[in-house]
């Protein structure tokens, strides 16, 4: 913190922050990049869809933060995939649930495999989220 910190506005204050607060945020951009490279959608479509999601978030009064930005990026990605591929709707919802179960069925430290999500999680463990620090 510098002596003239008070003079530094809200934008400059974020200078030097890490580009990602959570790993999934990097993965969203990486997926969008890979899909645009492959031509599943164009960069212009990506930019337009992300822009529309950002405007919608702003109109809803969401805070002007990285979290809001990446939530908009994920929504844009889901929307484009639903329109341009068969990765959307029920398939994504079902797969999300399967990953959730896989995590709940896998003990800490063991690699999480999707196949572990085939059965319902046992009730006795991992029924709550631990308070981990995401740095």
């Amino acid at each position: 913190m510098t002596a003239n910190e008070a003079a530094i506005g809200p934008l400059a204050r974020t200078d030097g922050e890490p580009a990602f607060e959570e790993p999934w945020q990097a993965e969203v951009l990486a997926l969008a990049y890979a899909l645009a490279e492959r031509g599943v959608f164009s960069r212009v479509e990506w930019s337009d869809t992300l822009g529309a999601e950002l405007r919608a978030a702003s109109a809803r009064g969401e805070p002007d933060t990285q979290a809001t930005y990446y939530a908009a990026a994920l929504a844009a990605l889901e929307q484009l995939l639903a329109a341009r591929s068969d990765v959307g709707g029920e398939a994504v919802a079902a797969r999300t649930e399967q990953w959730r179960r896989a995590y709940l069925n896998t003990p800490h430290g063991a690699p999480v495999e999707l196949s572990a999500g085939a059965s319902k999680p046992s009730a006795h463990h991992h029924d709550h989220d631990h308070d981990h620090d995401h740095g």
Partner: protein
Amino acid sequence: MVDHDSRAVRHIHDELHSHLPAEPALRVKALESLLIEKGLVDPRTVDAWVEGYSEEIGPKRGARMVARAWVDPAFRELLLSDAAEAAAQFGFDGTGISHLTAHENTDDVHHLVVCTLCSCYPQGVLGIPPTWYKMAAYRARAVREPRGVLEEFGVRLSDEVEVQVWDSTAELRHMVVPQRPADTEGWSEERLAKLVTRNSMIGTDRDLSRMVKEAT
């Protein structure tokens, strides 16, 4: 910034093997695994992108181009007339390079880059955009009151200096070529490149003479 990002990359791998991730993380995993199964995404592309952009590329590529433009008049001319070709001469590729335009600051003109729509940015030469570049406040204010934004970043311009704001799009992206600071005669390109800050190539930094003091 590099430290933070490399930590983030390690965190990605750790995160996959720990507790139940948050809802968006599960949704991303669902998309990614489905896309890989359908052959629409190569997992190595995703890993390489995350690692490449956070650790290797950063703004270092852009800084090398600026430094060369400072010492090599022919390269400077190329950078200002065809920045994509200038990047290609370095062997740089990646997002936002194919239609890259470079704008040179002078004593009379200061350039500032924004993407008013979302966050279009020449990642292939500048890495991942900073947080503020993605914020609604920057996207709106950079156009409406660029001088106010610049002051927030410590750049105070006299009234005689004209500010030109460039709105990046998915197809046309911009970078700024800052002015070479004084007292750097005879410096090597490599040494000069270290003076070039990321923000100076976006336009929220202008006078790099403090970097010379730090380097000497």
